[in-house]
């Protein structure tokens, strides 16, 4: 491999723990910069969707907004409510942040370049995801506030439930890939990304990912217009910013993860041939497209209520993901052709999306009422235009 030799291949100075630390520092540094710009980027993207401009004043086009926010939050007073359980309250932000760091350990950013190239990469990510819930529950219970408690309980229920479809859909893809190593998975997608072979798994993964990240339409634990922030409502200043940081960092981490598993990460389309610079660029590009999709969904959709959310998980997503696992298993065991598997998957994805849309149509007989008025208004206008 060309390029900076000490970043690849053998451990730096031959000392593996020093090499690990340096790699972690690089990844965390990049992650911090990206997270700071994600706060700015989300505001800009959301504003553009809403026909307004977003931050424009701090720096040219508002580019320094993230740093301004971070600076302001660091200088804020750190308020701790009297009713809060002291150590639980103080450690909760860190407990939410640590799993994110751990996920970043396994992600490959270029060929063979990550902090560590774990053979059980996917499995490690699953197991670490569960720790997120601990942090959220600590925040909810330790705040001594009923809104926080409501938010924490909702969040815990939601995260625990949606982990199951998340894990199973990833397992299905791992079955097809035949490996749990993230680097190998990316390399296997050299010719064709897995999303073309396993679109149903992608749909399930995307939905479950939105729910794990508390993003709309599953953001009822942080429902801003109801319980004003949910589990982090009592936090101020730097602690609150740690929650936000961990949310955006896990968003970015998940995006890289998803793009590695489904879209080929650094390898597709020409990653193998064009060197580590292009591979890095591909990884970043794909993760940002993912993030843009998440923002888009957030801006457009209202939120589901907690029982609707749970119904959707337990009555729809889990069944579909188990079915997916079974079908994949059959195809792989009996060594039926992969093309048929892909077609079956596409049909499954289409069926799931159609069922979701159809359920919405069923309830909106009232929308037809508005439709008639709109048509009548337009007909009247058209008649007037013709008459004049």
């Amino acid at each position, binding site marked *: 491999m060309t390029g900076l030799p000490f970043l690849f291949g053998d451990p730096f100075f031959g000392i593996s723990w020093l090499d690990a630390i340096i790699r972690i520092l690089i990844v965390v540094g990049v992650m911090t910069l990206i997270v700071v710009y994600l706060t700015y980027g989300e505001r800009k993207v959301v504003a553009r969707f809403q026909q307004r401009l977003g931050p424009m004043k701090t720096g040219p086009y508002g580019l320094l907004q993230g740093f301004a926010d971070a600076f302001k939050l660091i200088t804020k007073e750190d308020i701790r409510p009297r009713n809060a359980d002291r150590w639980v309250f103080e450690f909760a932000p860190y407990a939410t942040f640590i799993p994110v760091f751990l996920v970043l350990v396994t992600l490959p950013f270029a060929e063979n370049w990550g902090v560590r190239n774990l053979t059980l990469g996917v499995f490690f990510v699953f197991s670490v995801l569960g720790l997120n819930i601990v942090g959220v529950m600590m925040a909810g219970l330790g705040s001594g506030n009923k809104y926080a408690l409501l938010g924490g309980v909702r969040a815990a229920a939601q995260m625990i439930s949606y982990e199951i479809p998340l894990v199973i859909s990833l397992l299905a893809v791992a079955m097809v890939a035949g490996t749990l190593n993230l680097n190998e998975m990316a390399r296997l997608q050299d010719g064709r990304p897995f999303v073309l072979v396993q679109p149903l798994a992608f749909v399930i993964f995307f939905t479950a990912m939105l729910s794990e990240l508390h993003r709309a339409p599953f953001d009822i634990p942080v429902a801003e217009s109801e319980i004003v922030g949910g589990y982090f409502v009592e936090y101020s200043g730097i602690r609150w910013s740690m929650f936000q940081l961990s949310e955006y960092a896990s968003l970015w981490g998940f995006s890289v993860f998803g793009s590695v598993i489904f879209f080929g990460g650094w390898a597709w389309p020409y990653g193998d041939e064009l060197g580590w610079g292009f591979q890095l660029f591909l990884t970043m590009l794909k993760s940002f497209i993912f993030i843009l999709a998440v923002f888009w969904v957030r801006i457009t959709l*209202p939120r589901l*209520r*907690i*029982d609707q959310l749970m119904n959707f998980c337990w009555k729809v997503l889990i069944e579909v993901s188990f079915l997916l696992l079974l079908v994949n298993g059959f195809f792989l065991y009996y060594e039926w052709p992969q093309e048929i598997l892909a077609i079956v998957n596409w049909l499954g994805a289409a069926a799931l999306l159609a069922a*979701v849309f159809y359920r919405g149509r069923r*309830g909106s007989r*009232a929308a037809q009422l*508005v439709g008639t008025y*709109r048509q009548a208004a337009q007909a009247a206008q058209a008649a007037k235009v013709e008459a004049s």
Partner: protein
Amino acid sequence: MSIWPEEHVATAHHGEGFDTVDMTINVGPQHPATHGVFRMVLTVDGEMVVDCEPYIGYLHRGLEKLSEANDYRQAMGYWDRTDYLAGLVCEQAYCMAVEKMGNIEVPERAEYIRVIMSELSRINSHFMFLGAFGADVGSFGTSFIYAWRERERIYDLLEEVAGDRMFPTYVRPGGVAMDLPENFEARCRWVLSSVYQGLEDLDGLLTGNEIFVERCSGLSPVSPETAIKWGLTGPMIRATGLPWDIRKAEPYSIYDRIKFEIPTGKQGDVLDRFIVRLAEMYQSAKIIEQCLDQIPGGLVLNPKLPRNLRIDNGECYVRVEGTKGEYGVYGLARGGNKAYRMKLRSPSFCNLSALREMVVGNYVADAIIILGSLDIVLGEVDK
């Protein structure tokens, strides 16, 4: 003084596996979802609301006492701040009450202008509802901004006509304060075309959305009998299926010369209320267009009004189709240039009195949506 109501002693449930205690949540006066300073104390059992007690009066400004202390024209400044989203409707109602008590005539052109302004205010207020309701349901921000674009256009038009955006005190007893500007008709038609576009945007964003429909459909259905019993009016009662609109049932001003329909819902749930308000906006636009076609020339203010308006004896109860329902002004005059008693029958006050009935038995998240669908404005509720 304790801020918790004495009746809501937490009830403990025993014997269902484990002991639980109902939790009281204070959806306090400062809350992004309560559309103003309004407080309700919800007693919840898990996520289910068991009891709800609303507390109002945070915006009580002494409207009625001040109307007794100021003469008829001065008190107008208090009345348009009641329903502050649609000030001109309130002004029209108050001026009609003064005119009925004092037997004052209003020139025809002024009546048409009043109707145009009222309907523009109605569209304005309903846009606010669409924006805020979208925010309550969760598409935070997007629906607000779409609605605000149209509201700004309407406010600009109101500023051109009346001099002020929200509280112009433009409608006076005996007519309106000044005539319309020359380019009003062209401007108004342009605003209406933009309103149609904004309605299409909001319609596409919210009405066809599966999640929105799931959240709102079937939530707190109200039957017509319940609505009449509790005094619900306006879009609340039209959503239940009863086509009752004061502009048609007890016509005032020039509404008997204008053709428009009354959109009704089927079961009075939250989605029906939303749809009815959305459809009403098209009807309001239709009314404005007809008024622009029919408006005559002439004076806009009764020239025979004395400088010091005195009414010796008069009593009336004037009701107007306000944006939220039946906006009623009861007036009693016993001589002098000040009213003896003026009372505001505000639609939001009466709609809000039925809140407990509608919220109990639903989830906490739904309680917020139901409150949003009532479309209350606290200036009216608290007088």
